[in-house]
């Protein structure tokens, strides 16, 4: 086999033997064949391989190839014959062409991958309503596609469901790849703007209502180093960010909608509980007439009332549990049930109040409390009552004289160790007793600080004290509604009217 043939044989295995680049292998073979101690193999200005050291004695010889100019410098040894030089040139040329083809194919595939990434992110973002997931998809695709070494996505606290109301709030880092890119202070200083500075690329994620978040990438990798981001990179990422913005806005709207639906369901439940609370029938004590009416507010409060027979006497209850919605309605139901059970054995209102107080302190976790008016009615007009922080109960005598039964202690369930003493009064024949909740007297006037108030109610009751109870009660509700300009009640309005009609 000639030297040229042995050199050509190298082309059969144009691989990196043991991880060594091909030109090095060619140089090594040529040195071995010629007996040279050192050598350099190059192409144009570029040195492709270098072996051995010391000055090179012989001059540069050209290795002819179709397109490129390969050259060889050897120190010592026998010179290469023209056939061997041609063979070496051909072997190197075929290797170069093969490498170029590989690179071109990689470039082509990479562009295909970019297109696929754009499609994939659109699909991924369209398929989720979770802000965290959207942030991750955005980050992963953008980081990979731009060959960034590190990346982060920051989202407004209002977007990820923290914070309150409609405010978008401060940005929080929610997903990170490869390590930290920006500090909270840097992100804050950035405000609504973005940045393209050689090593870092920050693109705001903007919604119609303002900044939803920020995508930041750092250090664009190239083989063996870092290259600056380009304006085109910024545009590509901005395209991703705007797709993510749409997805994030949808996610926020969806969450708000779910929240609204849950509130609606809760309100429906609270209304149902409250409907169950209304007594189907009263135990009206002999010698009295009673009428009650309760109007629910939209949000449903914790009003409850009842008349429960307790042996010869009747226990009158009116209460207002602090708070709104299901918790207030449930607590009102619990209080109501407790009163009905306790009324069986202990008609003394101070005992009922003390036990209710203990019950509420024990059974309610937070600072839930209730204002309660409890009165034990005797057949002869005698009245023992406890008013635990409740609105003054109004008494109107037949002659128009008005006075109130003021609160006798703090609300139930509020202060540990409270005691509740009963007071005694007597209702003369024809006297009217009216108990109500604060939704009645605190009904606001439209566009003013004023509310309906206990004085207006007292004046109304005095003026209408002889009216039959149905007219009296409905009239009182009409008065309040007129006072508020017809606005729907913001709190439950409950009113119980009781009149002593016989000796």
């Amino acid at each position: 086999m000639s030297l040229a043939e042995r050199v050509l044989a190298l082309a059969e295995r144009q691989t990196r033997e043991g991880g060594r680049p091909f030109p090095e292998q060619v140089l090594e073979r040529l040195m071995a064949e010629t007996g040279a101690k050192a050598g350099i193999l190059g192409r144009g200005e570029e040195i492709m391989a270098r072996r051995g050291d010391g000055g090179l004695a012989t001059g540069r010889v050209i290795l002819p190839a179709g397109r490129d100019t390969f050259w060889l410098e050897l120190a010592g040894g026998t010179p290469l014959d023209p056939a061997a030089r041609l063979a070496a040139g051909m072997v190197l040329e075929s290797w170069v062409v093969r490498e170029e083809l590989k690179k071109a194919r990689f470039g082509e595939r990479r562009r295909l991958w970019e297109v696929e990434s754009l499609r994939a992110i659109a699909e991924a973002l369209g398929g989720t309503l979770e802000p965290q997931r959207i942030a991750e998809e955005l980050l992963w695709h953008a980081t990979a596609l731009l060959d960034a070494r590190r990346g982060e996505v920051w989202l407004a606290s209002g977007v990820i469901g923290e914070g309150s109301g409609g405010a978008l709030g401060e940005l929080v880092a929610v997903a990170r790849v490869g390590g930290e890119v920006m500090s909270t202070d840097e992100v804050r200083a950035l405000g609504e703007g973005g940045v393209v500075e050689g090593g870092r690329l920050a693109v705001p994620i903007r919604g119609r209502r303002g900044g939803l978040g920020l995508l930041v990438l750092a250090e664009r990798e190239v083989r063996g180093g870092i290259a600056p981001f380009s304006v085109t990179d910024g545009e590509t990422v901005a395209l991703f960010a705007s797709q993510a913005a749409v997805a994030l806005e949808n996610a926020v709207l969806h969450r708000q909608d779910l929240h609204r639906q849950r509130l609606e369901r809760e309100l429906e439940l609270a209304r149902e509980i409250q409907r169950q609370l209304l007594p189907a029938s009263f135990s009206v004590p002999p010698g009295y007439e009673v009428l009650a009416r309760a109007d629910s507010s939209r949000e449903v409060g914790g009003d409850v009332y009842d008349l429960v027979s307790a042996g010869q006497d009747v226990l009158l209850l009116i209460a207002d549990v602090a708070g709104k919605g299901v918790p207030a309605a449930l607590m009102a139901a619990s209080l109501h049930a407790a009163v009905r059970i306790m009324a069986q054995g202990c008609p003394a209102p101070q005992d009922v109040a003390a036990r209710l107080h203990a019950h509420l302190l024990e059974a309610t976790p937070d600072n839930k409390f209730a204002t309660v008016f409890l009165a034990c009615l005797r057949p002869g007009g005698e009245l023992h009552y406890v008013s635990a922080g409740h609105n003054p109960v109004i008494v109107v005598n037949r002659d128009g004289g008005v006075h109130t039964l003021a609160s006798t202690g703090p609300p139930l369930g509020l202060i540990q160790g409270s005691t509740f003493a009963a007071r005694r009064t007597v209702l003369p024949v024809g006297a009217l007793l009216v108990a109500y909740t604060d939704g009645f007297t605190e009904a606001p006037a439209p566009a003013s600080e004023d509310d309906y108030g206990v004085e207006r109610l007292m004046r109304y009751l005095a003026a209408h004290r002889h009216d039959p109870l149905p007219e009296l009660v409905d009239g009182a509700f009409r008065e309040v509604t007129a006072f508020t300009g017809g606005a729907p009640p913001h709190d439950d309005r409950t009113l119980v009217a009781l009149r002593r009609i016989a000796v």
Partner: protein
Amino acid sequence: MRVETFELKLAHRDGRLAVLEVGGYINNEAGEAIAETAGTLLAEGHQVLLLDLSHTRIINSIGISLLLEVLERIMEVGGTLAFCALSPSIAKTFQIMGLAQYTQIYPDRAAALAALSPPL
């Protein structure tokens, strides 16, 4: 916060086979770490290399080109490069970038080991 950090662990070796667990972002640094470990394993006679990508969600083009180099070197010695537990997005990437063509891809570690381990 979800954080992707790179981790590389030699999980198993048995005759010709070696299993590497790769977690996190395969970028330039990570790709080089994989290539270096692969080179060492090849030199030690492990010509069948399985990369378990259960904990990897992203790879960039530098990571891909480094894996392509690992593939070349394994093919030179007549070995096999295999992957398992690819996320759909990475599976797609491998397919587009031509990595899937010359490698073996398995749904999970068990399937890969069953196929790659020499019969007793």
